[in-house]
């Protein structure tokens, strides 16, 4: 009898509503995709981009100097304010710092990422991921404050230099104009070191991912065709790793541009963009100027990506 039941039903029909629903989804993959994508698209479109747009809009308003109230009329007055020397100074300082941090972290991250992608296997690879990610699991504030202690005049770094009889070297470094200061924790060098430490993982991981996708045979092929290791690096490895370096530098650059905690805790009292935004929208209540300051990193990143594309950074994608 079981045979008869099997032969009579070439297609199984019926079942509950949920089953019918899943049948519909399986046969119409686009519908499934729409259902899966709708919530994140709403989030991204309305909440994320919408608020960004509202922020941009704010930068075209201005603040009444007497009443301190926001005037909801389109004007470029706030941007005029942004371009005043004191504010330009802040922008220049922040962009220079971000560029230095990005270059240094790329230089440090590349060898680590290269080792992890090409040589580390099994246990060593796990150790690599752990070493890179572990700092990210602890509190950002705790790490910044511990760096303040490390860099302080009474800190371990000064002690190490003293034990090595190299205090003079540190003094020479701190005597340098602009980047120097009374101690490492109150100088741009200190700010730079802490930025470098905090954002380094964001540079290592994308570079490692891009190097991971370069087959070993490509490097062998370049050697086979006569390229010395240095030439192979310049013509094959670096161009193929470039999308990863650019991705990493987007992180380090934009994170440095926007950060206001590190320069407040470690460094001289001079403002960075993040701090300027913080003061203007909080203490001063000048939301239009804060918004205009926020536009600066967006514009800079736009130009940066445009330049990177022109240079062919994404050709390997």
């Amino acid at each position, binding site marked *: 009898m079981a045979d008869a039941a099997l032969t009579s039903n070439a297609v199984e029909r019926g079942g509950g509503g949920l089953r019918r629903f899943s049948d519909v989804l399986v046969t119409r993959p686009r519908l499934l995709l729409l259902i899966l994508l709708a919530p994140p698209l709403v989030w991204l479109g309305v909440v994320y981009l919408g608020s960004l747009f509202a922020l941009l809009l704010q930068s075209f308003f201005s603040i009444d100097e007497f009443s301190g109230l926001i005037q909801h009329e389109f004007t470029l007055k706030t941007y005029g304010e942004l371009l005043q020397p004191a504010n330009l100074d802040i922008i220049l300082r922040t962009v220079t710092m971000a560029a230095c941090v990005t270059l240094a972290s790329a230089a440090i991250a590349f060898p680590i990422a290269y080792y992890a992608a090409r040589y580390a296997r099994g246990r060593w690879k796990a150790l690599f991921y752990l070493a890179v990610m572990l700092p990210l699991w602890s509190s950002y504030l705790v790490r910044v404050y511990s760096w303040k202690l490390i860099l302080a005049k009474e800190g371990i770094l000064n002690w190490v230099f003293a034990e090595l009889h190299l205090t003079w070297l540190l003094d020479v470094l701190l005597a340098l104009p602009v980047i120097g200061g009374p101690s490492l924790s109150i100088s741009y060098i200190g700010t730079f070191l802490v930025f470098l430490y905090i954002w380094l993982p964001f540079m290592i991981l994308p570079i490692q991912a891009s190097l991971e996708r370069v087959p070993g*045979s*490509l490097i062998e092929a*370049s*050697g*086979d*065709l*006569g*390229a010395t290791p240095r030439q192979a690096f310049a*013509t094959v490895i670096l161009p193929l790793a470039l999308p990863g370096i650019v991705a990493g530098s987007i992180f380090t650059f934009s994170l440095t541009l926007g950060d206001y905690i590190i320069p407040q805790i470690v460094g001289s009292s001079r403002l960075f963009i993040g701090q300027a935004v913080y003061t203007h929208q909080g203490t001063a209540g000048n939301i239009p100027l804060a918004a205009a300051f926020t536009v600066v990193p967006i514009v800079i990143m736009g130009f940066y990506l445009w330049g990177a594309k022109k240079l062919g950074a994404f050709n390997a994608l």
Partner: protein
Amino acid sequence: MPLDRAGGEGAAVTSDSAVTSEPTAAAVAVRFQKVARHFGEVRAVDAVDLAIRAGEFFALLGPSGSGKTTCLRLVAGFEQPDAGHIEIFGETVEGVPAYRRNVNTVFQDYALFPHMTVLDNVAYALRIRGLGKAERHDKARRALALVRLEGYDDRRPVQLSGGQRQRVALARALVGEPKVLLLDEPLGALDLKLREQMQVELKELQQRLGITFVFVTHDQGEALSMSDRLAVFNEGRIMQVGTPEEIYDAPRNRFVAGFVGSSNVLEPQVADALCGTRGLCSLRPERVRLLAPGEAAAPEEVVAEGRVTSLQFHGATRRLAVALPATTLTGTTLHVTLSSALGLPPQAGATVRLAWPRSAMHAMDDV
């Protein structure tokens, strides 16, 4: 050595290279002396002696893991031998890195640079040597014409089909005019029709250029049809070196007989029962013929009677398995290949009489 060399000259190189049996030092392109390469406990290459002649199309044939690719990588310079000595055109190459060897490789996965156009890929070796843009593009275009891939200069590798990528890889390896071209299973990723076409083209190209080709393959048909000589590898050792005919007609041992083509390996007692003592023998299935009822065998022929146990149709040929009587021949099954043009074969279960020339039974080393 210009790339567009005349056809006649190249042919002369290949024909005279097949004649001499012990090549002189000058005529040897690649020489291996007791070369070994171990990976931990694995002896990938174990005491290999080999002399590949200049201008020869030489195949390294063997199953995967037999050491043939490691041998190729030793020539290219991607691996260094643990023991032994390697020479390329009389020059010792131990300790010489790949980029200082005048040897180029066509990789199994082609290894084309994804961030460069076809033309830049092919011109890569010339760019490394510091040639000007116009000159290197000119030479690269000629190399592409040589492999019959024109009009794709500005494409990227991802925009090409497998066969086109293969041609780019070939042009890229040839543009620097290497003394030896190494090919690591270059046709493995192509479909059957394209593979057959490329076999012919590669052979023609090699004859035209007169460059020594060393070709790694696990496909015995490919090795037989393309190479001037070949080495059969198994477990890191060379089983036999010779021309395709030598290897096919006179396999040295059980492994070669089984790996190169298919063969009936006749155990010594079977060979003895069939035609007197000959030791371990190989008998190619196509050498066996079917005797018509009442037909007498020629005097130099060996005759056996058996029952057909299976029958397979392969288009041009039919393959029969014939069980010889268990009483005298300990249950041996003979495989027989018959041309399909011969008409209807006997059915399974039928009793047939088989005959083959005594000379078709080739004695082998019993290892």
